[in-house]
């Protein structure tokens, strides 16, 4: 049990960025945090593709939804708007995934564009840093019965929270930056 915990902690730390005690984020540190944040976004994009795929079994989709939910800070929401309406519809992350899973298509294909944009990190009043990563997703859904083929491209602006945390390993205090995903703004694009 104890060994398992140490192994888990080791893996967790290897995915985090160990730092010295400091509050300002240097360009090099920013780059390391960007990489870590991007890994989380890649994980999310992978999970979204799996959840949306019609080949994914219900139980597997639920398991992946649990994993995807773990990437997010508590209470995170998805704000969705389309080209026809600027109005934002709000969904809790879990609800958004459930809706994605329940889409009424026989075939769903979700792919991602080879582009992203990472903002600067700004400090919040509570000392945590916040940034936004923008990615683009292509969705294709086909209904065999009606022959309907729906396609859209959405821009996803994903909040990232960056926080310095501490942990004890073999009596030593190690500090590291941890990244959590936050609210996601989903905008349909004209592309």
């Amino acid at each position, binding site marked *: 049990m104890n060994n398992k915990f140490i192994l888990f902690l080791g893996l967790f730390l290897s995915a985090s960025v160990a730092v010295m005690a400091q509050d300002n984020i240097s360009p090099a540190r920013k780059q390391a945090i960007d990489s870590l944040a991007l890994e989380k976004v890649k994980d999310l994009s992978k999970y979204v593709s799996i959840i949306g795929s019609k080949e994914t079994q219900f139980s597997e989709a639920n398991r992946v939804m649990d994993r995807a939910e773990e990437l997010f800070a508590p209470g995170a929401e998805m704000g969705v708007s389309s080209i026809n309406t600027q109005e934002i519809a709000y969904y809790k992350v879990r609800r958004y995934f459930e809706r994605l899973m329940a889409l009424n298509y026989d075939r769903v294909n979700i792919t991602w564009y080879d*582009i992203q944009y990472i903002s600067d990190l700004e400090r919040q009043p509570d000392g945590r840093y916040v940034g936004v990563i923008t*990615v683009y997703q292509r969705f294709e859904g086909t209904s065999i019965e009606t022959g309907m083929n729906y396609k859209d491209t959405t821009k996803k602006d994903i909040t990232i929270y960056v926080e310095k945390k501490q942990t004890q390993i073999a009596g030593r205090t190690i500090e590291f930056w941890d990244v959590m995903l936050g609210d996601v703004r989903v905008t349909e694009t004209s592309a």
Partner: protein
Amino acid sequence: MRKTFLIIAFFSAIIFNVPGQGLGGPGTIKDDGRFAASTKQLNQFFRRFNGEESVDGTVRFYPEDSLYRNIPLRKGFLNILFDNQTSSVSPDLKNQFIQTTLSEVYPHYLNFHREGWYAEVETDFIFKGKREKVTLIMKIQAEGLGYEWVIDKVIFEPFKTLFNKPVGDQKDFLHPLSHELGFMNLRRAFQDSNQPESFTANSYKPDYLAIFLYEMKQNNLRFETVTGLKFHFFQIQGWYFEVNQFNRPGFNTGWLIANLVRLAPGDKETILKYIYDQE
């Protein structure tokens, strides 16, 4: 002609730099340059305006980098930071603005943390059971260990018609010897009149934000959704510009300058008054 060539060269540089970006997994779609060219975040608008990132947006430049705030880089960016499809900004005005901004003697930059820029957020609220439009004017302020967006003013039509102080002989008043009667005639102000604002000082201005917050606390106002967003900038001395989001096909998309005004003395106050729309 030369300028068109420069813009095309700039876009081409963006397009050919694309493969370095991306989520990287198998099956990713190759961007044809449109998303790379798009000013995807307001953060990118700031960086492009100031010349603080590479043409493709993958490298953030810092003061120690040779290309940090590089003038040719900024010039390329500034040309593509305008809505070049629907805006009524004349090429001449745009060039004057770019020249001022890129002045070698006194270049101008945008600063995220400095005053002089505002967000105008269009929202829908339910007010006493009816859906109503509310505009929030927001600004960045220092707070605690960092910064936060705060509501500076609210524009809400039902409040604007709430206070309609009459003028001249239409206006009720408390006569100047009311004090001798121990203000017994306040009854006139508070019971008989349906325009109690008649009895306020000339300098009185209703604080709509205070009323807005009060109504929210009374559960008379319930937030529904955000329907629009734009930004107003006064940070470049002598100029005002508005930044809107353009979601359309093509390369000239994202957060772009939609409106540009050269400010004469007093113009800033006039535009601010128009934006705040409190009267």
